[in-house]
Every structure is written in structure tokens, then in C-alpha cells.
């Protein structure tokens, strides 16, 4: 009886499945919405969450189905996502790469499958692979921030630099941009340069230790805003929050509020919302036939200070 029942079920279900497959094929050629994939290097950081969600939201507003993929800062994971999204028939990829070199092959694989890629925030070292790259110009942003730093310091004093992850491109782009300005002033002395892995707790602990050997510093330059908040907390518990200036990079909500309240001197605003929305719009234009696009679009990083803070929103303006 069990077997009989089972075969009845199979007989009943098979035509339904066949019909669904056939109808599915018909629908796909009809008016089903196209799908856009959003592949983000990591969702472990609010800045990237904003980047991913803004891209997905804009694509949805333009009438596409979207899915966000999290590469967990792992290029191998990213490769799997690309394999899956090629197999699943996505029409375009809004892409925030994990690695400038490692991600190139993923972009090329999508291109061979006829799927255009649009890079956001970070670039890949390939001009031919992606349709366009909308890049946050970290280096120039830190040049501007460095100039503001020099003015605030009156060209002399001791400072500490907190680096991000030492294996990360962005860490060194930011550090190099900053030093390209600041190193021209011999009276500005860097008394310590330490890594705090872009992490708030690590930054606090590292600065606590640094303050032991260098209690008389005048400023801390941090490679991102999470570290700036951690550094500020270490200064508060050491009773030096008023005498030491803190500089961050990113433009996150925490730090924007801290700048408003005169706790942190300045940050550099990268606009994840603007970059993400631009990428989604360009993808839409591309899918509608537009081919005339710049290979690279550097997006200016603006210095946010206590004087001009009123002109900015956290995570950048909408476009």
C-alpha cells in the first residue's frame, strides 16, 4: 500500500513539475524582472552594510530583483558567489571587491559569461574587466586630511598613527596619502605607528599602551572611524581627551556625532550611499543599451571638520 501510494504521488506531482519548468521558461522570456547581484567584501562593518543596502535599494527602485552576497573578506568565498550568480542567470553585478588583484579573475569570469560588473569603493587592477569602477579616492582624501592636520597642529608636535589591517590596500593608501603631506614638516614627529586592525577595542588598548611611553602626544591619526572612537575612549580614561586631537576616516554616524560635539577633530567622508546609487544607475543604463561609460570614476573624499559638519550627513548624501 505504501509503494502504491508513493507511485500515485509521483504520477500526480510529475506533470506539475514539468508544467512549472515549462511555464518558468516562458515567463523568463516574458516580463519577469531582471536580477542584479550585489557582492560586498564584508557585512561585518556598518560602512559596508550601508554600501550594500544602498546599492540593493536603488536597484530595486529601478525595477530589478536584487540579492546581497557577503564575501566575508575572503576572495575564495567571493569566487563561489560569482560562480553561483553566473549559474543563476543574474544580469549584472554591483561589486565591492575583497582584493585588487585576487578579485580580477572573478570579474573576468562574469564578463566571459556576458555579465557586466560595476565596481564600488574599491578597485580591481584591471581596466578591461569591469564596465566601470566608482572608486573612493582614499589617497587624495588623506592628502586633504593631512593638510588640515598640519594646519591644526600649527606644523609642530608629536602624534601617533593607528593603522588598519596591515595586509589591506586601504590601510596603506590612507597612510601614504597622509604621510605624503605630513612628512614634509620636520617638527611633526610620529612617536608611534601601530596597527589596531580597524577595530575599536584594539585601538583603545593599543593607545592605552602607547600613552604609557608617550604621555605628551598632541594628536592621533586613525585609519578608520572605529579606531578613532576607540582612541578617543582611551584618551577620556587617561584624562587627555581635551589636549589630544583625534582624526578619523570614513564618516560613520558615531564619529559624525563626536565631531558635532567637538570630541573628534575631523574625518574624511567617503560617500557609500552616493557610490552605491551611482553604480546601480550605471548598471541600469548599461542594461538598457548605453555603452559610453568612463572606465574609472574617482569619487572625491571630503574632509569633515567641526566647522563644516552641518553640511554633511553620516555615510554621505543621497544623489
Amino acid at each position, binding site marked *: 500500500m505504501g509503494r502504491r501510494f508513493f507511485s500515485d504521488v509521483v504520477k500526480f506531482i510529475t506533470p506539475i513539475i514539468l508544467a512549472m519548468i515549462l511555464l518558468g521558461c516562458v515567463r523568463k522570456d516574458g516580463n519577469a524582472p531582471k536580477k542584479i547581484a550585489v557582492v560586498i567584501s564584508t557585512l561585518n562593518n556598518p560602512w559596508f552594510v550601508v554600501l550594500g543596502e544602498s546599492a540593493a535599494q536603488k536597484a530595486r527602485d529601478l525595477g530589478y530583483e536584487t540579492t546581497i552576497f557577503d564575501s566575508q573578506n575572503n576572495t575564495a568565498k567571493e569566487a563561489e558567489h560569482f560562480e553561483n550568480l553566473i549559474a543563476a542567470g543574474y544580469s549584472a553585478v554591483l561589486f565591492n571587491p575583497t582584493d585588487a588583484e585576487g578579485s580580477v579573475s572573478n570579474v573576468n569570469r562574469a564578463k566571459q559569461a556576458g555579465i557586466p560588473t560595476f565596481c564600488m569603493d574599491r578597485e580591481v587592477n584591471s581596466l578591461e574587466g569591469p564596465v566601470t569602477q566608482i572608486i573612493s579616492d582614499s589617497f587624495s582624501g588623506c592628502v586633504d586630511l593631512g593638510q588640515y592636520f598640519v594646519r591644526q597642529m600649527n606644523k609642530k608636535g608629536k602624534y601617533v598613527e593607528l593603522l588598519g589591517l596591515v595586509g589591506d590596500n586601504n590601510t596603506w593608501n590612507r597612510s601614504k596619502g597622509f604621510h605624503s603631506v605630513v612628512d614634509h614638516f620636520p617638527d611633526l614627529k610620529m612617536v608611534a605607528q601601530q596597527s589596531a586592525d580597524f*577595530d575599536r577595542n584594539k585601538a583603545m588598548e593599543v593607545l592605552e*599602551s602607547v600613552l604609557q611611553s608617550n604621555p605628551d602626544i598632541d594628536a592621533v591619526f586613525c585609519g578608520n572611524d572605529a579606531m578613532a572612537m576607540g582612541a578617543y575612549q582611551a584618551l577620556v580614561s587617561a584624562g587627555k581627551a581635551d589636549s589630544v586631537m583625534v582624526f578619523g576616516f570614513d564618516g560613520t554616524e558615531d564619529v559624525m556625532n563626536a565631531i558635532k560635539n567637538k570630541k573628534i577633530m575631523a574625518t574624511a567622508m567617503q560617500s557609500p550611499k552616493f557610490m552605491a546609487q551611482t553604480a546601480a544607475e550605471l548598471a541600469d543604463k548599461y542594461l538598457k543599451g548605453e555603452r559610453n561609460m568612463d572606465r574609472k570614476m574617482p569619487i572625491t573624499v571630503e574632509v569633515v571638520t567641526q566647522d563644516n559638519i552641518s553640511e554633511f550627513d553620516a555615510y554621505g548624501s543621497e544623489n
Partner: protein
Amino acid sequence: MNIKTTVIKFQSIIALFILCVVLALLSDKFLTPENGWNIMRQISINVCISVGMTLVILTRGIDLSVGSILAFSGAVAAGLLKYGIDIPSLNLYIGFTVFGAILGGILVGGGLGLFNGWMITRFKVPPFVATLAMLTIARGATMLWTGGFPITGLGEHFAFIGTGWFLGMPMPVWITIIVVAIAVIVTRSTKFGRYVYAIGGNESAARLSGLNINKIKIWVYALAGILAAVGGIILTSRLDSAQPNAGFSYELDSIAAVVIGGTSLSGGRGSIMGTVQGALIIGVLNSGLVLLNVSPFWQQIIKGFVILIAVILDRVNHPNED
């Protein structure tokens, strides 16, 4: 013979002492009270987690999920404190006091630990795999709960736990001392403590002599979860912020502290005080390398070699274990 056994018995204290002398000679800022408190405060979270990890490793298990449980418990406590629980469909809003929120976080940590223990005993999932699964589950739950954004602005009462002072000592250090004191008493002078060692020493013998092994193991993993939650609450309070990526790779620091402290990964041998010394060595090394402004590249290499040397010494002293 006597000198040799004494040296072996106190090897981590001797190593710690040598390390401190070297650092004190290299930097005059090392042996200051402020730096001492900094180091103590910085290792307090690792010590809390590592006490739980020691119990787990004594039963010949491992707990890879402590970092994620720490993040989730901290985020739960922060979320309850800041937003409470709002159920519009029942027209119900529950607010939480600082105490209630902390209790909530600790219950969540204990619950996840209990789940680990249940998987390991009821379904015979190897501890490595069960807690590896929990590592991603709890991390995902943290993301879900926080939406990927830090929960900040938790008020000064909550901040007191991580940043306040009481009778001349920082609060995290008080909490850690209490945790360590209880753990030392439990492992040395209670039946439960002896059972933990017995299971790690020889599980079948322990079973044959009538111990309820499953029950003890479940308790051990639940305690590891609770202690991870305590660490999570200290961290959240110190930062005035529950970070979604908090506690990333803390399980490795914790295992390092346990191993440097002389606890055997094959179970049955080790001590809470050894683990405290292991955590102190790591903390002193971290602080000292920054104090001397050693390049971040070299710091990682040096720390790796310290772990290797500790384990090699342990191997030499206990050649008959597998």
C-alpha cells in the same frame, strides 16, 4: 631532581617574571602602576573566557564559539538596555534595567553554551564541529540582532562595569578576580571539579565508576557560554558600544592562554591559575611590544613563537601524553 620539578611547576611564573624584567629594562614606562592596571584591565576579558575554556579543555573538549557567543551576549544586553522588547501586535513594551539587561545577556550566553553541550552529548557531535557550527550561528545571530550596526550610547550606569573603579581597582579586574576565585575553589575542592578532571583523564573509567558524564559535560559548556557572556558584557561596557564584529578570533587568544598556562589539550591535566598566568604572559607581551613600538608585522611572529615555545616545554616535561 627537586630543583627540576620546582622549575617545571613554576615555569609560567618564571617565564612571566623574566618577561617583565626584560621589558622593565628596555622601557622605563613598563613598571608603572598605570601600565599595570592597563594590562590587568586588558586581559580581564580574555581571562573570563579562558576560565571557561580551561574547564572545557580539561574534559578533553574545545570551544570555538566563545568569541561569537561573547559578541551575541553583549549585543543582546546592549539591545535590551537601549531598546527593550517591543511587541506591537500584543501592544506590549518591556523595558530593561541595567541589571535586567545584563542578566538577559548572561542567560543567552548560558543558553547557547547549553545547546553546545546538548549537541555534543546527545548527538555525539565532536566538540570541534559542534562549537564551530555555533561560531557561525552566534555570529549570524549577532548580525541579525544588530542589523550590522553597532549599538551605542548605553548610559553611565552600564559603562561603570567596564570603565569604573571600586576600592582602588578597576571594575573589570574585580569581576575577573571573583570569577577566577570561584573557578579555583570549584576545580580544587568540589566534587564537580574532580569529575571534570576525571572525565578528561579517562572518560571510560569515569563512566564505569558511575559518573553522569553527559550532565557534567553539558554544565561545562554552559559555564563556558556564561563566562563568554560575562566577557561580552565587560567589552560592551568598556566600549560603550556593542560591535557586531566584537570578539572576532578571541577563541584563539583564549586557547593560547590555556595552552601557555600548561593545560594539556588531551584533557585531565591543567589548572585555572596556570591559565591566568598564560593570559598574563600574552597581555604583558602585547603591551610591552606596543610600548617598545615594535613593528606590527614582527609582533604577530613573536607571539606565535611564544606559543610554540610554551607547548614545546610542556611536551618535554610530559613526554608520555599523546
